[in-house]
């Protein structure tokens, strides 16, 4: 049974690799606006002129893996897929920490929503799925052509899991519903403020604020910013700035404490763990 489950995931891994590759190529060919690629995936970590080539290399790698897993039995491609998804997981975790505004870019421009737990969970799942395919000795094409009902069920479960972990589907529905992406829709600041006040980032930083109303608010693309006057525990005046993503019911909310000279401040924690 474990072998059947593992085998059933092979078509999904191949499908996602092929889709990811095609979407990345489409994004590059769309010739996005200047700076458009700055919000897409780990490519933001390389200089501007290398972003399109980096995306192209990633797409070529994915296509190679998909083809290798489909048409050969060589374990190199299976191990490479495991390594690719494991590395992707690390890259997304790191990217989420360093650039919270960028999307994962996994499926090109469709994946512009900021990286969340779901995107990371999806790469973890794909790592596990591709590790499972190592157990299957046959070639990929045979797995896809000689599929049984049990395998089809396992594939469907895997597909449902992947769909549940894909924020791109929600984004696609929202675009069809509103006929425009989030960046082009007028959205009231009041709604974003209400979502901010319901967030954990607000709870974490509320004690630093000296006023209940923002001193400034503005919008850039799909982010609404709120700046509040605040004070650190040692009395230094600071700005506490929140960024609320404007799409989705439970949007990502980021916060930062900025000193008067514009440098980020790491606020002191209320309690510091002391080892005995």
């Amino acid at each position, binding site marked *: 049974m474990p072998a059947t489950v593992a085998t059933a995931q092979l078509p999904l891994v191949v499908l996602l690799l092929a889709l990811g590759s095609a979407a990345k190529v489409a*994004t590059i060919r*769309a*010739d*996005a*606006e*200047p*700076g*458009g690629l*700055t*919000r*897409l995936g780990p490519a933001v970590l390389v200089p*501007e002129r290398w972003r399109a080539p980096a995306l192209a290399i990633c797409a070529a790698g994915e296509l190679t893996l998909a083809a290798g897993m489909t048409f050969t039995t060589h374990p190199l491609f299976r191990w490479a897929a495991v390594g690719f998804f494991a590395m992707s997981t690390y890259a997304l975790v790191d990217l989420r920490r*360093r*650039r*919270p*505004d960028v999307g994962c870019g996994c499926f090109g*421009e*469709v994946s*512009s929503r900021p990286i969340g737990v779901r995107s990371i969970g999806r790469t973890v799942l794909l790592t596990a799925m591709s590790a499972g395919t190592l157990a299957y000795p046959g070639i990929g094409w045979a797995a896809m052509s000689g599929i049984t009902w049990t395998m089809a069920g396992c594939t469907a479960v895997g597909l449902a899991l992947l769909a549940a972990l894909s924020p791109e589907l929600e984004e696609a529905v929202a*675009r*069809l519903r509103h*006929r*425009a*992406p*989030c*960046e*082009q829709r*007028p959205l*009231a*600041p009041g709604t974003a403020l209400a979502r901010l006040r319901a967030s954990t980032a607000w709870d974490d930083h509320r004690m630093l604020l000296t006023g209940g109303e923002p*001193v*400034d*608010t*503005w*919008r*850039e*693309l*799909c*982010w609404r*910013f709120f*700046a509040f006057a605040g004070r650190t525990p040692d009395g230094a005046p600071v*700005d506490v*700035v*929140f*960024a609320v993503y404007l799409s989705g019911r439970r949007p990502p909310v*980021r*916060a*930062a404490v*900025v000193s008067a000279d*514009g440098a*980020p401040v790491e606020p002191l924690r209320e309690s510091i763990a002391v080892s005995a």
Partner: protein
Amino acid sequence: MTDPTTVHRRRALAAAVLGRPPERPESSDGGQEPLRAVTGRILDASPHMIVVEAGNGAEERLVVAPWAVAWRGGDVAVADLPAGTNVIMRTVHQGKVVDRIWADTTRITGTIVSIRTDGKDQLVELDAGPHRGRHTIVIPYRASGRLRVRHPKFEPGYLFDAIGVREGEGEGEGDVLSALLPATSQPPYRARAVPVPPPAYGGAQSRVAGTVTWSDAIPESGHRARDGHRTENTRLPDDRQGTTDQHISGDGHGAAYPMLERSDSGCDDAGTSCAGLPYLALGSLLNVQNTCTGRAMSIPIVACGCLAGRFCDRCVECDTSPRGRIAEVSPVSFVELGGDLIKGCFNARIGLG
């Protein structure tokens, strides 16, 4: 209304919270020689040398290239420019050699409010938007033919856009604005009936392209690069000083962008465009790329481009651009991006800088 003291911090705050690089991105000259724009008032002009006084009182002496010509209602020799003329100059060779001069050049953009005649000339009252107010311009008889042919709906309620010269002693109310060259093929709809953008299922990552124009009504200040330093010129046109969005840039660069949230910009006319633009804010950096020359630059948004958003026209500077004015930039930015003030526009693409 937005507090101007907080607008200039927006980029730093957004960079801190979203982990963006805080510094302004480098300009790209597309592999060509960098252009620098110098503004000032002429103290002395000869065929080989021009002396100007920048806004901060500093005197600048620049070599005039043999091929350089000036425009002041028409092409004139550089030596014929009188002292006291306000100029913007395109310079090459590290800002030392003047390549092109535009003298007393102004852009006249607005909605026609009324038209009356004054002898053979026509006096047109224009509504230049909530931030720029109303003013009356002169269409000299000699220019009326070429302006009318590009403005077939020459009647109140329709848009007007022309390039001309500013004549007068000062820089304020007493100046006479003469329209001489059409700067657009007039949109056929009324100014209040802007076409809606097409549905955008594809998302904001798709190409945002259109036409970029210039306006001297954007808060501007002159600069020139010299030994790594920039001199500032705080010359601002007439009574527009002191409004919300002034002095963000401080180096002569600035852009007016149509797609601002009305509640943020304090402008009830904001958020109108037929180009399907993404929302940005005062203080955001706009990456503008001149697709005709390949030059690109990040320019801070300093004003609401509520009037530019009403123009659903095209630019045919190097190809036919998609419809819609996606930004209006200061003359300094326009020139440094390789634009010609007389042509009035260039095909461009924009993104978040």
